């Protein structure tokens, strides 16, 4: 509660400022809930907002890929191969098979973003489920899941991904599943830790006393209180998934032609490095920009959700004030 009071205080002051008359304060509105506070704080963070804008930009141009470019990303046109950027309608030129690079970039974006978000969503669901059950019940269930996590963490993820992709074939939904199955452990550990703490709280006891079912407690009462770190982790996972996808596709064990992804474009570009070095730049810049954007958003959400973060910022300001005061000689 005290946290909310601090939050509303500046607003009250501001309204006093604009209306110097002794007018009675307007009846205070319902204090903003924790979610509103987070949203407000998030939009005050310039990095996070920039990240959001960049990500939205990529989402929009990938979704509208067919509208933006008239070219089919997989259409081979050997008469127009290796065109320089800006030739005719080809904004970024064409590759060694005459495919329009700009169009390929946009369509790659579709795949990379789909993989990124689906993997994050699925692995968060798995991780939350495992962590919740493990943390709530404890005992042998917990031991089994924790050993499972140890096992998963002891095999390098990339090896496991390569193994599965090589064995089961390189379809996009396989890829999403395997990437999700190799990245849920972090969330599971986190959720387990939170549940271990929370299950001893009095409100859980109260809920149990009035006869709320175990599932009710796990998924309604506890999940809400564990949701902040889960969301942060999910956001940061999107970037990791996009990077993994590009790595696998680069190795030839991910997305296959005629479909296209940024990783696949990079592996292509390496073969034709001497002819057109620029081809390697575009997809890499796209990956970098998207992952950076997602990570900024994740960090922004984390900072916004962390009540301790306020202290950190004020300390920095405090230093500034101190400096100013010492200059002015007070």
């Amino acid at each position, binding site marked *: 509660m005290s946290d909310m009071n601090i939050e509303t205080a500046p607003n009250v002051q501001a309204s006093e400022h604009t209306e110097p008359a002794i007018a009675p304060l307007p009846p205070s509105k319902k204090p903003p809930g924790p979610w509103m506070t987070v949203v407000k704080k998030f939009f005050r963070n310039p990095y996070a907002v920039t990240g959001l804008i960049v990500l939205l930009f990529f989402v929009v141009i990938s979704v509208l890929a067919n509208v933006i470019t008239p070219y089919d990303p997989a259409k081979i046109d050997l008469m127009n191969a290796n065109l320089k950027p800006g030739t005719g309608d080809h904004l970024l030129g064409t590759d060694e098979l005459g495919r329009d690079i700009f169009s390929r970039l946009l369509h790659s974006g579709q795949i990379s973003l789909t993989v990124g978000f689906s993997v994050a969503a699925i692995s968060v669901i798995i991780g939350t489920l495992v962590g919740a059950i493990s943390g709530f019940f404890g005992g042998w269930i917990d031991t089994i899941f924790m*050993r499972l996590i140890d096992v998963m963490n002891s095999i390098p993820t*990339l*090896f496991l991904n390569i193994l*599965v992709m090589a064995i089961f074939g390189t379809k996009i939904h396989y890829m999403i599943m395997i990437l999700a199955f190799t990245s849920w452990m972090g969330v599971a550990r986190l959720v387990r830790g939170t549940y271990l703490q929370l299950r001893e709280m009095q409100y859980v006891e109260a809920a149990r006393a009035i006869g709320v079912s175990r599932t009710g407690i796990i998924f309604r009462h506890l999940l809400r209180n564990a949701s902040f770190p889960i969301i942060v982790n999910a956001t940061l996972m999107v970037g990791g998934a996009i990077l993994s996808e590009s790595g696998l596709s680069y190795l030839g064990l991910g997305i296959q032609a005629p479909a296209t992804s940024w990783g696949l474009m990079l592996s292509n570009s390496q073969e034709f*490095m001497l002819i057109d*070095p620029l081809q390697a730049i575009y997809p890499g810049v796209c*990956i970098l920009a998207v992952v950076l954007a997602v990570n900024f958003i994740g960090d922004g959400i984390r900072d916004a959700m962390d009540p301790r973060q306020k202290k950190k910022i004020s300390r920095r300001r405090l230093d500034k004030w101190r400096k100013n005061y010492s200059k002015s000689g007070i």
Partner: protein
Amino acid sequence: MTEYFIRRLLQSILVLFLISLVAFGLIHAAPGGPTQMMMAPGVSPETAKIQAHNLGLDKPVPTQYVIWLTNMLKGDLGHTFKNNLPVGEVLWPTVGNTIKLMAFAWFIALLIAIPWGIYNSTKVYGISDQTANFVSYIGFAMPAFWFGIILQELFSLKLDWLPLSDMYDMDKQGNFGNLLYHLILPCSVLVLGFLASYSKYARSSMLEVLEQDYIRTARAKGVPERKVIFRHALRNALIPIITIIGLDLPILVGGATLTESVFNWPGMGRLFVEMARSREYSVLMAITLITAVVVVAGNFIADILYKIVDPRVKLGSKGGKSA
């Protein structure tokens, strides 16, 4: 301590056993199993049967597992399907090459990252600190192999300063100077990746220690700042750094796969990718198991070291590293 040691050891062995089950199970879960994978498409069913019998693939799966595991424990990694070479002969040289690459990159990264992180912890939000922050953001968001490709284009093709790929020039096999020359580009890629995390670890670990009461006491007593940093703070800050680095071993073993592929480095990661493409299961299983052994051993040693170095850690606490 002994009790903890034994329990942790048994745990590690259990994990390794489960990993061997996973590795073996995955390959036998493949549609058609290993038999179908290794047969040429035109082979008649009879020949396939004889072949499978020769390789012991017609036995029940649990029996096959036991045979495979006992062979592994004896140090017999099996044979490749294609040329019937002993797996060890294919594998061990690449392990050496990966270690050369990784050890070099890791050493340089630690040499830069730890002093840098310590320095940044003393000048928070300074130019150096902001640079480190920038480097780690880029390092985390950039695909390492892309950075490798860019370096190749710039330094090998455009400027022609450094070799494009491989470990040695054709006529200078085994020459150490030549090896160093070839190490520069792949190492730069790996070092950036390590720097991104290690300098942050070092910084945050130092910052945490610098807020402790005994540091304030030391300063209040008039201990010179240099001594406070290096004697009082650094010693305590190094403990978490060591643990985190120990837990990072999987990256050290498996993390060079993409870099090796970009630079055509004849290491274990690249071998794994090649063997996955040609479905040489015995090699894949061997690599998976060997990396797992290294990783589990690394975690085990890090845990034990942690307990020895840091007397505050409660002995015999359940669950080892809690989240």
